Structures are given as structure tokens and as C-alpha cells.
């Protein structure tokens, strides 16, 4: 995706003035509620009209106030997944899924209903009315409906924020899976850094109707580490190997992590705050924390009053944070050896 936007619009007390160029297929729009994220996607999708400016997607002008171009929303081929499913209540699951597909020109029907229902696991639901679906199923149908319109860009406007954490991480693999499988570039909108980390490679940061930063999502997370109460959230994807003494042993890179978990799933995604990791200069003889990892310092960065320590732990990356005095006492340097201790209960399962 190659998106150029330079638009202005006044909403009374609030004004939107955005100018950016972005290349990439997994782009995030990050900012607090009311910052103008949804207003911006309304302009890009053609549902709202800017006062002036231009919007160019993949070298095609969607809007240009200079020469009066304003492509109607239905011709832009920009699919939308909204915060809530917003399924058509008078149509069945199948009717909803095929709504956009039927309106797509036959030569543009690259993505077919059979493939989408398979990826989104919707085959058994097709004849149902939408009122007989759970929240997660409804959102999957909404994703399928947008994907089946064969869009050249998919805009996901806070599609996870109405879901609880458990459901959120059930939906994420579908969102990612469907976009990866069918190679659909997307704009993912959220005020949650965690969601942004999982979904986007690059991020546009929005505040008060302006773009205030354009960076990689990883850099954004590192930069916000010092401001956030939760620190930097490490996302740890593991495979279960065995169970012992009320803990689960999971394979992570070349080592094993012991995690307090009642869940018996073979795979798991856990979050671990950078503040839950204790660093040691030398191997402590005995320690109550069940995980002691031998790591190498890959990078050191400052975030506010804190120092972020990026470590290579048996082929996996982990970020811990310490205050400056602690960093000095530990003599942390790039390439140096360090030990990271993590309690088994410090991990929180996401999926």
C-alpha cells in the first residue's frame, strides 16, 4: 500500500489537519479517543468529505479538492471493519458475507467465499441468522464480509476494543490470518499499544487531529515504556512441553520457561511487563523466581527516567527496564552477559 494524505476538515471546536505519506502493508493509526483517528478513516474511505486536500492510494486519486475529484465510497474498494460488527440484521450470515462480493466486478473477485469461510471457520454458521451468533462469531462474519468485497485496502477501526481480552486474542489470529492469506494491506486503528504491537509494523501517532509521529511500532512501544505504568510489554509466544508441580513448562527459543498456567493449550501467547524482570550481574546461587535466563545485552535505550535493556535470551528477544543507578551498578553494556529472573506468576496469558 502506498497512501498519501493531505487533508483538512473543521468540526467546530475540533479540526483535522493531516499530512503524511506511508508505504507498507501493516500500518497502525495510534492515538487516544477523540484524537481524530476515526475522522481520518472516514475521509480515506469516502464516507465523509474533507474541506480541502487530497488523498492518493496506490497512485490513484481518491480525492482532490484542486481538480474536483471525489471518488464515491462504493468505488474506492476500501473495506471497513468497525468497532462493532454492524452486520445487516435482515440478512443471514451468508447474505452478509456475500453482500460486498456480489457488488464486486467479476474480474476483481480474487478472494472467494469458500476460501474466506474456511480461514474464518464460518462454514457451519452460513445459514444462521446473525442474532444467533456469539460476539466473536459476529465479528468474524464482519471481517469476512469486508474481505469478500475484495478490497485493495482494509481499514479496521478499533475492531477489538469492544471485545474482552479473551475474545480479543481469539479474533486477532483471524484478522492477521485473513490479511496474510489474501495479501490485503491494512490500516489498523486503535488506542491500545498492545493491539498495535500485535497488528502493525509501522505506526502513525495521532493527537488533536494532527500526526505527531511516524515510526515503527517497536520504537513507539520503547518510547512509551517510561510513561506507561505497565512498562514495555514483552509478547512471548511459546509451545508447551510438559507440566510439573502446578506449573507449565513452555519451550521458548533454546530454553524453557516455567509459567503458572491452568490452560492446557499446546501453544500460548503471554505478556510480560519489562518491570517484572529482575537483572543480575552474576548468577545468583538460589532464587525464588522459577525462571533464570542467561542473556546477552543486545541494546540499551533511554525512555524517560528509565533505561531499557534489550536482551538476547537463547535466540529470543526480551526487554527489561531498570533505573539509571541500577544500570550503572550492573555495568550494563552492549554485548555483556546478564541474568534475568522472572517469577512464574509474572506472565499473563493473552491467547
Amino acid at each position, binding site marked *: 500500500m502506498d497512501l498519501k494524505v493531505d487533508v483538512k476538515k473543521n468540526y467546530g471546536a475540533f479540526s483535522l489537519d493531516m499530512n503524511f505519506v506511508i508505504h507498507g502493508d501493516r500500518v497502525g493509526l495510534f492515538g487516544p479517543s477523540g484524537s481524530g483517528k476515526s475522522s481520518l478513516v472516514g475521509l480515506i*474511505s*469516502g*464516507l465523509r468529505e474533507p474541506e480541502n486536500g487530497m488523498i492518493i492510494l496506490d497512485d490513484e486519486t481518491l480525492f482532490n479538492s484542486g481538480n474536483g475529484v471525489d471518488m*464515491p*465510497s*462504493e*468505488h*474506492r*474498494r*476500501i*473495506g*471497513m471493519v*468497525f468497532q*462493532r460488527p*454492524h452486520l*445487516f*440484521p*435482515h440478512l443471514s450470515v451468508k447474505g452478509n458475507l456475500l*453482500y*460486498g462480493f456480489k*457488488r*464486486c466486478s467479476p474480474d476483481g473477485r480474487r478472494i472467494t467465499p469458500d476460501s474466506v469461510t474456511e480461514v474464518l471457520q464460518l462454514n457451519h454458521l452460513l445459514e444462521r441468522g446473525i*442474532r444467533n451468533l456469539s460476539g466473536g462469531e459476529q465479528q468474524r462474519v464482519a471481517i469476512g*464480509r*469486508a474481505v469478500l*468485497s475484495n478490497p485493495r485496502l482494509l481499514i479496521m477501526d478499533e475492531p477489538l476494543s469492544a471485545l474482552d481480552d479473551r475474545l480479543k486474542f481469539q479474533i486477532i489470529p483471524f484478522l492477521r490470518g485473513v490479511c496474510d492469506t489474501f495479501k490485503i494491506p491494512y490500516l489498523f486503528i486503535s488506542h491500545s499499544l498492545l493491539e498495535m504491537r500485535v497488528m502493525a509494523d509501522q505506526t502513525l501517532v495521532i493527537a488533536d487531529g494532527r500526526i505527531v509521529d511516524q515510526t515503527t511500532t517497536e520504537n513507539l512501544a520503547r518510547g512509551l515504556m517510561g510513561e506507561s505504568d505497565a512498562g514495555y510489554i514483552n509478547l512471548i509466544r511459546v509451545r508447551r512441553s510438559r507440566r510439573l508441580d502446578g506449573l507449565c513448562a513452555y519451550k521458548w527459543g533454546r530454553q524453557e520457561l516455567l509459567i503458572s498456567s491452568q490452560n492446557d493449550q499446546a501453544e500460548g501467547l503471554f505478556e510480560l511487563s519489562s518491570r517484572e524482570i529482575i537483572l543480575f550481574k552474576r548468577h545468583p546461587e538460589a532464587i525464588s523466581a522459577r525462571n533464570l535466563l542467561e542473556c546477552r545485552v543486545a541494546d540499551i535505550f533511554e525512555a524517560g527516567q528509565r533505561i531499557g535493556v534489550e536482551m538476547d535470551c537463547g535466540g529470543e528477544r526480551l526487554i527489561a527496564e531498570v533505573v539509571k543507578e541500577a544500570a550503572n551498578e550492573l555495568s550494563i553494556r552492549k554485548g555483556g552477559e546478564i541474568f534475568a529472573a522472572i517469577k512464574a506468576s509474572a506472565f499473563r496469558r493473552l491467547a
Partner: protein
Amino acid sequence: MLNFTSYDYSAILLSLKVALTATLISLPFGFATAYLMTFKRFKARIILDIIVNLPLTLPPVVIGFLLLILLGRQGPIGNILFRMGIQIIFTWKAAVIATAVVGFPLMVRSIRTGMETIDKTLIDASRTLGAGRFDTIISIIAPLSLKGIIAGSLLMFARALGEFGATVIVAGNIPGVTQTIPLAIYEYTSSPGGDAMALMLCIISIVISVAVLVFHEWLAGRMERTD
């Protein structure tokens, strides 16, 4: 009931015919007006709102008289129609126009109520899925405001059955030609010994109205179950 004359039977049939025709003719206009007033923002909206709702507050006789001026042979519309060989005043068509005008605001209000319950994001969703404005109206807005459309049509039909004031002015009270049930009742009550017949026609009116209401309730219940 056995004493009904052929004029009485034709009054009953004419009432049904006028009410049905007025409802069917008003439906597309009522839908379009409700759509404009629900989904469009334009400067003349308040004027449209007043014009549409005016028949609700005006005495039907006033509406009848205004229609008489408009549609009479010397009237701006009536004159053109007369030259084309079309006679409106004192025909059943005049009764249709009178009842359509009087019942129109009721129909628009019901359809609007139905349309206002539609989640606006559904309309946005349909547009981004490739549906144009007209397609969205047909495939999303019309089916989702069906309850309002049915309620509005039945309300207008019921109102049309009872229309008197405007009809008597533009269509007159010609037995067998423009005389509907209310006009026939009026004529019986003005004649000596006509009370019994007036009462019979009142019972017919009540039966038709109850049938319309029962049909509406049945349809609403059925739609509720299929939702």
C-alpha cells in the same frame, strides 16, 4: 344489512378502492419524503417538514377547499388537466387525492420512525462494500424500515376510510360515483328515518377498521418472530 341498497354497496366498495389507491400512490412519495427528512441535511428541510405535516393540523375542509382551487377548471392544475381532457373534481379520483393529502403526514411519520431506528453505520458499511446510494436504499434502508412502511400504510389506509371533510368538497357526495361510507352515513343521518342504515354503515366501518388493526398486529407479531 340485507336492506343495503346498491348505492350502499358501492359506497363500501368505493371507500375501499379510494383508501387502497390513495395508500398505494402515496407509498413511493411517502418513502422518498421520509428518506429525505431522515438521512439528508438541506436548508429547505424545515420547509418540507412544515408542508408535509400541515394537513395534520389544518381542518380537512380547508385542504378540500385548497384542492378545489388548485384542481378546479379555473385552477392552475385543473385548467391544464381540463385541456388535456382530464376531469378530476367530482370524480372518485378527487376523493383519492383528498384522502392521499390528508393521510400523507401519518404515512411519512411512521416510515420516518422506522428509518430513524436504522443504525447509520449499516449504511456506511453498505457503501464501503460497494453499494451505491440507490442500491443502499433498496437493499438496506427499505427492508430495515419495513415495519414503519407497513404501519404507515395501514394507518393511512384506516385514515383514508374515514376521510370526510376534504372529500366532500372536492369529490362531492354523489351516490354510486363519489359517495364513500362516511358520506353515505352523513346522508342517512340527514334524512328522516335513516338512523338504522347509518348505524349499519357505522358497523361496517368498525368491522373494516378492526380488521385493519388486527391485520397490523398479526403482521407486526409475525415480523417480530422472524427477526
